């Protein structure tokens, strides 16, 4: 099945019980995530101009260097976590990578000193904390009922549909995709353009990888 979805396995990295694997699918996602991280880390942040409606006025919002440094660091960690999530070969490890992506996303948002952004960050954080139950719960149910966490073994075993549904819910909450998207959308009004892109990108790529894992289970 691993071959069926991602192409033939080009190589594995052996970290004890956790065996990340490289297929053309995971490799291309891994390279994409790393490249975008490098691009975002090198990019210069924007200065936002707000036009005042109905008047001949504008205001320039200039984020401080301190804030931008912090956000850039969060973006780099988020990108590394993202590329890790692309190649990992263990279900529990994957959930941890997703959580790391989630918490760095909150970090990218939380550095902005604006009440509406912090409000959105707080609500997104609440969803993240709630989503940790379905996410880790799914991994634990797989361990309890199938007896293993390794994706290499799970491809031949059948898993309770319940675990799959919980995993899907967990990833949806942790990355804040479609129905729970508004908290993230609010954030895009904040200054600091290139770093916000990482919030988008990480959600999309984690969802694609989750689709592969769900097909495989």
């Amino acid at each position, binding site marked *: 099945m691993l071959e069926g979805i991602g192409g033939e396995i080009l190589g594995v990295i052996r970290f004890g019980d956790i065996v990340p694997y490289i297929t053309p699918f995971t490799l291309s996602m891994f390279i994409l995530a790393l490249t975008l991280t490098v691009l975002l880390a090198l990019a210069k942040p924007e200065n936002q101009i707000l036009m005042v409606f109905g008047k001949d006025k504008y205001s320039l919002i200039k984020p401080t260097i301190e804030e931008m440094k912090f956000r850039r660091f969060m973006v780099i*960690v988020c990108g590394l976590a993202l590329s*890790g999530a692309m190649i990992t070969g263990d279900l529990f490890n994957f959930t941890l990578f997703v959580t790391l992506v989630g918490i760095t996303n909150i970090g990218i948002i*939380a550095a902005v000193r604006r009440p509406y952004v912090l409000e959105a960050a707080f609500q997104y954080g609440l969803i993240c904390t*709630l989503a940790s139950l379905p996410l880790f719960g799914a991994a634990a149910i797989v361990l309890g009922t199938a007896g293993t966490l390794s994706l290499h073994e799970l491809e031949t075993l059948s898993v309770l549909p319940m675990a799959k549904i919980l995993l899907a819910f967990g990833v949806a909450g942790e990355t804040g995709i479609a129905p729970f998207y*508004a908290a993230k959308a609010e954030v895009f009004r904040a200054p600091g353009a290139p770093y916000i892109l990482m919030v988008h990108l990480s959600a999309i790529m984690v969802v694609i990888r989750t689709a592969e894992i769900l097909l495989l289970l």
Partner: protein
Amino acid sequence: MKWMDKAWMILSDPKELPKIFAISILFVFFVGILLNYPYYPDQLYPKSFELSGLYPYDRGGTPLKEPAKIVAQYPQNSEMIGWITSYLTPFSSWLASKTLYLGTTIVSHPGGIVDEILYYTRGLDTVLESSIMMMAFLIVGFLIKLKRGG
């Protein structure tokens, strides 16, 4: 399509989102109560209960002489598997010979089955877990620093 307008309006408010997430997953948990969960009998890293100084974490082996037998997922990937489980510092082995209750604190002594899994066979998990903690601490530290104006 008035209800649809309403639904979009609710979904567009960040304050309502955690509530919507909670409600949408309620049904899953309700079904979860009624399900049958077959327990897999041959689990990895099973527990055993031997009465010794390390009860209930005694997995056999002698420190630095003989490794313990561990049921890992891929034993071939961890060459020195079992050695950490059987290892105890001189202080800990002295304690283990004196009392029956060292096992309850084996997590905090160097060596033992928990260290074997946390540091060695599933070490990547622990690395990630501490990075998650570090990121949370960074966010908190940064916000406190902003508040102090430094």
